[in-house]
């Protein structure tokens, strides 16, 4: 029996970045104090979020309601194990990216740094709000806050390219928000609630016909364009015009993970595995995921710009999460849930390395990076660790989630048991576009004499921490209670094995 614990803790956790954003503006003329507030808010938020873990691991949920928006629809938070996985990931990585941002923004003498830190804080406010939302309405509000607050970050450079990227980003994600709103209204109309319920909203299947439910699911999918599934993915590579810390946190952790987080919420907590299975929607989702996995990998092969290659790799990895949940098997869903933090740690390492290379050498294209590993060994060794994770090779966290996804396929049985070969093809393609970067960086001779050195310490320390975490997860997946929380979430979902999508 799940007990509800009333507490203000989730609100305090969410408000940390909002309060910090005010202080950031007030102390905008004093960079050290301004950035001190950013770091402090990140640390406090992380500590508050992690303090909720013991209550959740005991099988409880923490709730906090503000007001009733409509009958049976309350604006409030409900912290469960799965939400906490996303909240811990976002809040911890915010601390590291704040430190990284200090090094990056100061080294490049970037303009409008106060605006940058202000929007960054609001983006984290949105991301943690999504993680701790108790229903679709609350999630929708924070989803839109996340979209709007990240626009100035994407368009930060204010060059024509950056402004175009910002407009495209906004157009895709606001349109996506409209679909989400439509899906929210229809869900409420059908079931009279928008709450996330373990195993799905019970009366959803009884109150609507099959066709309506299929349309509803499609609306939800379009509403989660943040997951960058194809063909609605192109905002992500375009948004790489943003400064690298933005690409790192928002486009490897907060924004894109909000998309896949939403899809898992809809599959497991709105529709429920049984209904998804009955409607045959698992297969639809698997088809979209497989198409995206393969095509995104092929696109990545064609990129010479390092950040764009990483962006396509992100699209591929997000679809792995969708693939896992679409299997509708316990291990598939477990793999999908655990891949959210694992991928976040690995991909943020890669993005931060790309930024460090840019700051130290000004190089953005892979073909220009010959021999750079010899002068920037720490950066490129950590890059190698992240790349191994993307290729699902040991000893990295990526290997574990890949393992779970393969088990999920076997568990599903039937034709799905051959799908590990598709995952194999995806991993091979990952090797084909990540290994050449490592080869060029370490084994190719640099052109001309080079006086390069490593990026500033503020940037290097977070990279080393995230890379180390990616390895620690392999040996000890319970770091930050990740595997325990995922197991608690799976227990509360109470999914039986051996289902076919």
């Amino acid at each position: 029996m799940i007990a509800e614990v009333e507490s203000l803790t989730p609100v305090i956790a969410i408000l940390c970045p909002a309060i910090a954003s005010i202080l950031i503006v007030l102390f905008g003329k004093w960079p050290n104090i301004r950035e001190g507030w950013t770091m402090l808010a990140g640390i406090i938020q992380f500590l508050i979020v992690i303090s909720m873990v013991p209550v959740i691991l005991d099988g409880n949920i923490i709730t906090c309601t503000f007001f009733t928006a409509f009958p049976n629809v309350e604006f409030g938070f409900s912290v469960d194990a799965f939400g906490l996985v996303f909240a811990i990931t976002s809040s911890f990585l915010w601390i590291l990216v704040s430190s990284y941002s200090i090094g990056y923004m100061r080294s490049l003498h970037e303009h409008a740094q106060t605006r940058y830190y202000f929007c960054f804080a609001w983006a984290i406010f949105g991301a943690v709000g999504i993680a701790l939302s108790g229903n679709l309405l609350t999630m929708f509000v924070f989803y839109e806050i996340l979209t709007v607050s990240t626009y100035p970050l994407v368009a930060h450079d204010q060059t024509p390219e950056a402004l175009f990227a910002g407009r495209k980003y906004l157009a895709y994600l606001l349109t996506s928000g409209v679909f989400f709103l439509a899906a929210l209204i229809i869900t409420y109309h059908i079931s009279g609630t928008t709450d996330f319920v373990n195993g799905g909203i019970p009366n959803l299947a009884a109150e609507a016909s099959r066709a309506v439910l299929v349309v509803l699911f499609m609306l939800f999918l379009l509403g989660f364009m943040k997951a960058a599934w194809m063909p609605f993915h192109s905002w992500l590579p375009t948004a790489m015009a943003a400064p690298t810390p933005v690409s790192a946190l928002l486009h490897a952790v907060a924004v894109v993970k909000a998309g896949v987080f939403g899809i898992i919420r809809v599959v497991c907590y709105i529709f429920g595995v049984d209904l998804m299975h009955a409607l045959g929607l698992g297969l639809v989702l698997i088809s979209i995921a497989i198409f995206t996995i393969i095509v995104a990998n092929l696109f990545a092969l064609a990129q010479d710009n390092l950040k764009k290659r990483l962006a396509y790799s992100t699209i591929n990895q997000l679809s792995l999460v969708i693939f896992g949940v679409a299997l509708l098997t316990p291990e598939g869903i477990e793999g999908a849930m655990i891949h959210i933090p694992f991928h976040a740690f690995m991909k943020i390492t890669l993005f931060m390395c790309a930024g460090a290379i840019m700051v130290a050498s000004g190089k953005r294209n892979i073909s220009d990076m010959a021999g750079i590993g010899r002068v920037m060994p720490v950066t490129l060794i950590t890059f190698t660790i992240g790349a191994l994770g993307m290729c699902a090779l040991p000893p990295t966290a990526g290997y574990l989630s890949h393992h779970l996804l393969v088990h999920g396929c076997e568990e599903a049985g039937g034709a799905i048991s051959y799908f590990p070969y598709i995952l194999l093809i995806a991993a091979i393609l990952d090797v084909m576009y990540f290994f050449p970067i490592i080869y060029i960086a370490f084994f190719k001779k640099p052109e001309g004499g080079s006086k390069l050195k490593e990026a500033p310490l503020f940037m290097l320390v977070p990279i080393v921490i995230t890379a180390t975490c990616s390895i620690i997860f392999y040996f000890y997946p319970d770091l930050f209670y990740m595997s325990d929380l995922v197991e608690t979430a799976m227990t509360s979902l109470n999914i039986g094995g051996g289902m076919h999508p």
Partner: protein
Amino acid sequence: MILIDEPLMFAFVAFWLIWMAIFKTPPGQWLIRLCEGPLMTFARYIDFHVMKLAAFFVWISTNPVAALRIKGKEVKLKVEQPSITPEKAAEYERDLEEIHKMQPQREPMVRLNIGTALLLILVFIALYLLAMFMGRWLAP
């Protein structure tokens, strides 16, 4: 536990490393060329059409009445063009240009206004109603 695909994966990594040691260039150049050429062209094509779709929503929502008149005129011109005189066709074209001035085509996705959002909601509520009616109609 060794998974079904693991030996193959490690074999490929070993193959890749040996290939690089011998030839000093990554294997699968044909695949990379395919990705850089036709596949990227296809990607740009898809992106262009998705952007065009969004731009179309923006264009309609700016002034739906004018947009409908323009579309109506365009369709009329296309239908009547084979049977009318060149002078009449030129007159139609001039009319069309005049109406187009009422609703200038902006750069795709300059802004997504509230009108667009409302229009999209209406479209999808219509879709929902359609699906609901179809569901009832198809029900035994």
